[in-house]
């Protein structure tokens, strides 16, 4: 299982589209969005967490592309006739998604600290990174589910839609305060919003709210079940 994890992480990191889309892009957007308007220290910190979350979200959802591709080329089928069990295979795939989220988080936080001069207590940096990492798990599950459920073509559209929709709606691109009031209420229930919120609350110096953790755990269960159901359905036809 660990060998499979290592192989898949290697393959993901060699994917230029992945590196540009989920590592380089969020860094660029972060630097752009925070250096266009008035210079405001709090926005630079909030946006750093938001963009790190956005990058993590992209990396997590990218799992879908990898799985759908491996299914289309027959690699998943080939794996089924090796002595690796299906359970090990799908677990390693989920872990791959979790591991490849880390560069995205690290890149934006480095840009915040080194380029934008964001200053926080030293302990907050690792805590935010770890929280964002754990918080991205529901999205890895969503990506995994999409990848097992759909063909490459259908998956591309659906995945992109889930990705952008959740990012914008959750306030990762623009502050939620710019939304009309009713949309702010919807936003409060999105996993993306809560995902960024747990990071921001640490940056602001307090523990993540129980509501945020609750909403995220709920989504983890929902998307986790979705991944399991999709995998079971796909396993017959892989």
């Amino acid at each position, binding site marked *: 299982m660990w*060998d499979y994890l290592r192989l898949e992480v290697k*393959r993901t990191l060699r994917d230029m589209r992945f590196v540009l889309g989920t590592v380089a892009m969020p860094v660029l957007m972060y630097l752009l969005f925070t250096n266009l308007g008035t210079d405001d220290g709090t926005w630079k910190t909030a946006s750093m967490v938001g963009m790190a979350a956005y990058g993590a979200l992209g990396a997590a959802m990218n799992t879908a592309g990898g799985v759908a591709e*491996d299914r289309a080329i027959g690699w998943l089928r080939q794996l089924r*006739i090796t002595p690796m069990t299906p359970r090990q295979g799908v677990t390693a795939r989920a872990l791959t998604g979790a591991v490849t989220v880390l560069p995205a988080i690290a890149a934006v936080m480095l840009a915040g600290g080194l380029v934008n001069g964001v200053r926080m207590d030293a302990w907050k940096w690792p805590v935010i990174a770890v929280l964002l990492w754990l918080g991205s798990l529901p999205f890895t599950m969503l990506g995994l589910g999409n990848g097992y459920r759909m063909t490459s073509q259908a998956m591309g559209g659906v995945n992109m839609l889930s990705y952008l929709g959740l990012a914008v709606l959750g306030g990762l691109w623009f502050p939620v305060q710019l939304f009309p009031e009713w949309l702010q209420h919807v936003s409060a229930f999105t996993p993306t919003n809560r995902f960024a919120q747990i990071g921001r609350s640490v940056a602001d110096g307090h523990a993540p709210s129980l509501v945020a953790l609750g909403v995220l755990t709920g989504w983890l269960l929902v998307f986790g079940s979705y991944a399991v159901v999709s995998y079971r359905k796909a396993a017959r036809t892989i």
Partner: protein
Amino acid sequence: MKTTKAPAVSFTGAVKTFGEVRAVDGLDLEIGAGETVALLGRNGAGKSTAIALLLGLDEPDEGHVELFGTAPQTAVLAGRVGAMLQEGRAVPRVTVAELVGFVAGRYPEPMAVPEALRLAGIEELAGRRVDKLSGGQTQRVRFALALAGNPALIVLDEPTAALDVEARHAFWASMRAYAQRGHTVLFSTHYLEEADANADRIVMIDHGRVVADGSGEELRRAGGGSLVCFDLAGRGTEGLALLPGVTTVEVRGDRARLRTEDSDATVMALAAMDAVRNLEVSPASLDDAFMALTADPRDLERV
């Protein structure tokens, strides 16, 4: 251990249907350890479905399929099987050595990676990215994946489809080298010459069941002895099917082709009819045997 006695592969009355289609329809087949067997049949004869059942990728609706006396999944998880599937394409963003090494590492007693690459004839490609290789090279990488674990049985589903002649020869040389180590090899093909040249035993399947089973020589004989051809020179074909020994009659242009179980008797009868024009007697080719053995019985009655 009882399992060491068990055949490598055994199908007992296996049936697999997809909707209305009975892809595998009562397949009985036993393959002993160490045999090299070709599964021969036209497209849609049920070869790939049989292989999917054999590898535990699919389950039979009726009957049993066993590998080494156990369920296919058990044998796969024990590392006794390696396979090259039909629809596999190149795995992107890995090198040949990484990929082969990874698959080898899943098995309890794998081959060393350089050895697997040497057997597959791709030593010099070890450091190359799999997705940058030609079709023939990719095919050999997939062959290396099948044998990397040093499994007791390897299964190759149409391994040479889409290969050019040279690549095909190289591929079969690799396959024979592997079989010579005492491993069991089962491959499917719809090329008769390939089956004849590379297998000890040919199992012909059609409509999802075995229609003939034996060496190439045995099948040629079973497929209806010899072929007698002559010019019709304007005469009709009536009565030809009733001549002694004749099993089928076929007309191509002005030339009649009689498949016969007793060419001497057929020729004598033709001579008596004064029908000998450009007469030619030849042993039936494996092609002819294949046509005779897989033809729909209703087709034979049309003459």
